[in-house]
């Protein structure tokens, strides 16, 4: 059941058809209208346009069904807990109404809430409150899940656990998530809604990864490499066939069962260039490449576009190094890839 919306938003209009499963990340600077968009989709805010989930009409010119009829789960930007109730009571709030039994224990365990389940919400710390609110949303039986900055105030370990849970939820239904963190975006997003000052873009992550809205924020670009996974039973290093005889070795984090193709994002800053293949280096991924284009980036840095045969790779190096290596279009060299992020 995919979510389709065609509605007015702050910066104009949004017309998108989100994937039926998987995570859609809504990204944009503070105050650009992310929460407002989420609230409109939920039905807490009215905006002209239409919204459908699968064959169900949430909103169109004639009809408007209330949030409670949309059968959704939401984690608001603030925790919105009932202060006088315990964490568990907050998590279970309203769950007796749904037909399915609530399986909250795996979720509370993963979010490290077990110790706190019987503590009153008002005595929880800020991060604990956010985790309870997230647990409430994730344990609710719902057709779609909306999470507004669900990982704020969490430390790295809890963040990872929460990301795992969100990915699990996204296996069976669409999940929309607002975040300001690029690492979260890369780790989770399959589909993006990018909200800028004058426009709102949406589409697969591959298509939008180097949109100015994103690159302005992080200051550099990403490349996305894709290819079938070739498992190596002898090691946890598996290979991705990038075509043109090149392979990329990664330790896959997500065992994308069923999908043979895997996608990897590479930060342009994590690519270094070398004229010869360094055989005695600890860098594992060294790929033959040809310079396609050189572009000045911010002060003292040069963006280099490389051709790996059948795919493109971007590198960001100092202009000092570019000079030293005498880079120019057509030059054959080797790209050393320091780090990769597997994306969906």
């Amino acid at each position, binding site marked *: 059941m995919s979510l389709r919306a065609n509605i007015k938003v702050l910066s104009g209009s949004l017309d998108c058809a989100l994937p039926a499963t998987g995570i859609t990340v809504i990204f944009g600077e503070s105050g650009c209208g992310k929460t407002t968009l989420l609230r409109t989709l939920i039905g807490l805010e009215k905006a002209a346009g239409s919204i459908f989930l699968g064959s169900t009409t949430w909103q169109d010119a004639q009809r408007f069904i209330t949030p*409670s009829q949309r059968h*959704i789960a939401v984690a*608001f930007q*603030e925790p919105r807990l*009932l202060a006088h109730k315990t964490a568990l009571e907050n998590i279970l*709030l309203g769950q007796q109404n749904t037909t399915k039994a609530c399986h909250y224990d795996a979720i509370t365990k993963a979010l490290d809430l077990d110790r706190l389940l019987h503590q009153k919400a008002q005595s929880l710390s800020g991060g604990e409150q956010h985790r309870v609110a997230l647990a409430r949303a994730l344990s*609710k039986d719902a057709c779609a899940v909306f999470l507004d900055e669900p990982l704020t105030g969490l430390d790295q370990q809890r963040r990872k656990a929460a990301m795992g849970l969100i990915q699990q939820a996204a296996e069976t239904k669409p999940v929309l998530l607002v975040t300001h963190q690029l690492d979260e975006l890369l780790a989770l997003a399959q589909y993006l809604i990018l909200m800028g000052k004058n426009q709102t873009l949406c589409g697969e992550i591959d298509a939008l990864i180097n949109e100015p809205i994103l690159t302005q924020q992080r200051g550099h670009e990403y490349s996305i490499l894709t290819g079938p996974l070739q498992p190596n039973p002898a090691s946890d290093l598996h290979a991705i066939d990038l075509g043109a005889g090149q392979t990329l070795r990664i330790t896959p984090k997500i065992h994308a069962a069923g999908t043979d193709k895997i996608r990897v994002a590479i930060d342009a800053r994590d690519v270094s260039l070398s004229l010869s293949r360094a055989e005695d280096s600890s860098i594992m991924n060294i790929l033959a490449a040809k310079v396609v284009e050189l572009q000045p980036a911010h002060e003292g840095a040069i963006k280099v576009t490389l051709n790996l045969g059948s795919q493109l790779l971007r590198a960001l190096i100092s202009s000092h190094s570019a000079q030293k290596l005498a880079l120019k279009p057509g030059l054959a060299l080797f790209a050393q890839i320091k780090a990769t992020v597997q994306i969906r």
Partner: protein
Amino acid sequence: MPLPAASVQAILLTLELAFISTLLLLILATPLAWWLQKSHAWYARVTEIIVALPLVLPPTVIGFYLLIAFSPNHWLGAQWLAITGQTLAFSFTGLVLGSMIYSLPFVVQPLQSAFAQLDKGLLEMAQVQQLNLAQQFRHIIFPLCKRGFIGAAVLGFAHTMGEFGVVLMIGGNLPNETQVASIAIFDAVESLNYSAAHQLSLVMLAIAVAALLTLYWRKGAAR
């Protein structure tokens, strides 16, 4: 010195009247206050003013109009007489009706205040969690507006207990029927029966202190 039976009667009658009126008022005022708080319609505003009228009208005005409405020459009084064979004036039912009108704004007002201060974010959350109205009331509205409900009940009860003008006008000082404590004390003082007046007053005082102690003890425990 044991309390005379008449005094006991008067006190019990007062408590009964205040209790029944407050209970009925809470049942009536909760949805009313909710609607008044939520609705933006003009007729909600008109209703708000009608509900608030007893606030600013002296009880004797209310008593006067009730007396007229209760009289068999008027529709209400005539209907009542036809159905029950009794006049509404000078009856306990009449007093309950009068008390309710008299105390309604004292119950609606604290509730409306409490509802206005309710965190809208939590109500949105409740909607998303698919709580029905009863569950919203039980889990959110009531616990968060508890002080408002306590205030409404206390003020409603107190105002009814203290009701004197209306009772004096539509009650008629009938022992065990409409002679509530305030009237009985007035009566005792008027009959120069100062010891009875003192006694009744002290009993009312004791009941008051006991009631308040219970209330505050519970409130303290809940803190």
